[in-house]
């Protein structure tokens, strides 16, 4: 018999305990600026080379420029408010996104690998990403924009806990 579940307890997800590093805002800003710049340059180039549709392209350029400025101004801070992480003895819990949000939970016993990654920009800012993978093809948990030392410490702690937990993680 399939249980359809009782009455709801009136619960909601609480945000994870820890914020990421404040410098992550700078990192996301750089990313946003480069994205918007590429788009604007492409549109500007097209407007330069295609005089036939120049008016339309200029309108598109202006619209994209306004939206882009909004994006650059809002997205990094919004992300900084949303992106959070937390580990307990039994699980890893992350929140990510800005307009759309996603929360991921993985139990310690199912963690397969713990990676830290640092792109050139992150390295320049002293930031680091920690990615936790499980046996699921769809479930890596990624914590971006951590302070370098925090990330190293976190990865080390997770690796230790994972090794101490028995099971084949499937």
């Amino acid at each position, binding site marked *: 018999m399939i249980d359809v*579940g009782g009455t709801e*307890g009136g619960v909601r997800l609480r945000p994870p305990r820890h914020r990421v590093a404040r410098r992550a805002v700078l990192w996301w800003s750089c990313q946003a600026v480069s994205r918007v710049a590429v788009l604007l340059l492409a549109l500007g180039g097209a407007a330069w080379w295609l005089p036939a549709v120049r008016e339309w392209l200029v309108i598109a350029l202006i619209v994209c420029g306004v939206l882009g400025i909004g994006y650059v101004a809002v997205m990094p801070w919004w992300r900084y408010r949303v992106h959070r992480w937390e580990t307990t003895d039994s699980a890893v819990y992350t929140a990510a996104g800005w307009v759309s949000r996603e929360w991921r939970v993985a139990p310690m016993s199912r963690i397969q690998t713990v990676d830290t990654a640092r792109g050139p920009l992150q390295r320049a800012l002293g930031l680091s990403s920690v990615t936790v993978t499980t046996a699921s*093809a769809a479930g890596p948990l990624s914590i971006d924009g951590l302070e370098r030392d925090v990330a190293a410490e976190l990865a080390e702690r997770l690796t230790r806990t994972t090794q101490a937990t028995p099971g084949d993680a*499937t």
Partner: protein
Amino acid sequence: MSEPPTEYSADEQPTAEQPGGESPTGDSPTGTRPGAPDSFETWQRLDPKAILASTVLVIAPMFPVVGVMALSRDNSLRALGTAGVWLTAVLLTTLGSWLSWYFTRFRVTDERFELRQGNISRSFSSIPRERIRSVDLTAPVVHRMLGIAVVKIGTGRQSGSDSDLKLDAMPTARAEQLRELLLRPRTRPAAGSGTSGAGPSDAGRPGGVERETGAELARMRPSWYLYSTLTASLLLVTWAAIGSAMSTLSDVFRALWASDSATDWLSDKAMSVWSHVPVWLTVASVVVTVLLGGLLGALALSVEMWWGFRLTREADTTLRTRRGLLTIRAVSLERRRLRGVELAEPLLLRWAGGSRLTAVATGLGEGAASGRSDNKALLPPAPREVAERTAARVLERSDSLDRGSPLRAHPRTALRRRMTRALLPVVAVSVALAVAAARTELIPWWSWSVPLLAGFPAAAFARDAYRNLGHGYSDEYLVTRYGTGVKRTVLLQREGIIGWRISQSPVQRLTGLLTVGATTAAGNGCYYVPDAGAEQGLAFAERCAPGLLEPFLEKNSKSTGEPTVPQNDSPPESGNETTP
């Protein structure tokens, strides 16, 4: 070196069933006769007939080409050149497959399966036997005629191309023995009864990738071919095949009669016939012909795919499917790798009351590797009742997941969301047309009403999508159901849940919905409960995997205003969910 598979006679069989108790003949890595002792502990070679098989595969497509060239009395020099290229290709293929045969050795020790391959770049793979998740036998036509089969050993690794080890090819009986050896539970040595009895006896007959063992869970019925004919993907494949065949055919015709007046004569004749026929009849007959052709082609394809389908359980631990008319495919799946099942009902199939049943299992090509999705099939498209019954038997559940199972309905706002998504584009196009009609004379004024007609089916689909939404759980399984184009019902073992992915878009946040995803090592990697009520979904996730989400939940002091659906809600099919 090419002994027929019947060589492994019945009196040699007992030695095969005792790992460790074999005679140590041919222990040098190179000099092993393939299967002198019926054990796999010494280095084994593949069957040299595989070389012949790959050569035949290269030669076969050449015949039509050569035939066309001969018929068209082509320039002899060009024909000679083509023949030369062809011969070179054949020689190279033969040489290549001989080399790979020569350098390939494998063995099965107590702990590991080891494979050596490669001539230029040598490779050595060694995998622990407990990591082997599936052993599949495939026998394409040529292989079947030669009495050999391809063995694929799956380890269920997520990444890397080495997740599959392929042995191309072995005598069918040996392949069967290898499969049994590799999939036998390690704790039970020499299960020399039952499963080993029928081995060599049926190996001699062509396509004997089958043993009459195990308990039969399902068997093909002739009427089921009609269901598989109905699956849209099959129809599309068929039409594509017909299309390419037509263009090939016309190429052949052109090659044959390039300078002839035959085509002109034919088309003149055709024109004179067709000119007396009204246009609508021509169009209708073309449509009917294409449809009939597609249906017949799909029928033929589904017969080839599903001929002689059987699903069996062997030694209580392994599920086994076997199917195919020309190419025989046999797939084994260990019970402990099974994490659940999925019932999929594409639109056409659903209208006919049919359903597809696939396994949700680890090591069967997950996520990106869905090209192997064929392996997951536990049943051909079949009547829904049969699929449900088979699902229950596969999962060893006493109750079947029947149509009226009281899955929990999702909040009314989920319906509103679907309606909006379906009707918004319709309204937008309609408005755009109205504006355009007001501006120009080119578009008739009534054109705005045309898209609105499409609104009715769109709304019907949205309603259907909402009705199909549902979730629930039993002692052992999580159940989720969703979709309208393809309605899916997934049963996922609760123990197989290895994490949660919970997401909320802005619209979902405004309407108090969220999407709960249960991650798992099996199948797609993540199975979703789309658009559940926020509290409903979280409570559901917590109940399915107790303790995992609980530390991260908090009591909601102020209610979000989301009405909770009462427990005794009727099944979503009846559509009388409580309204706000």
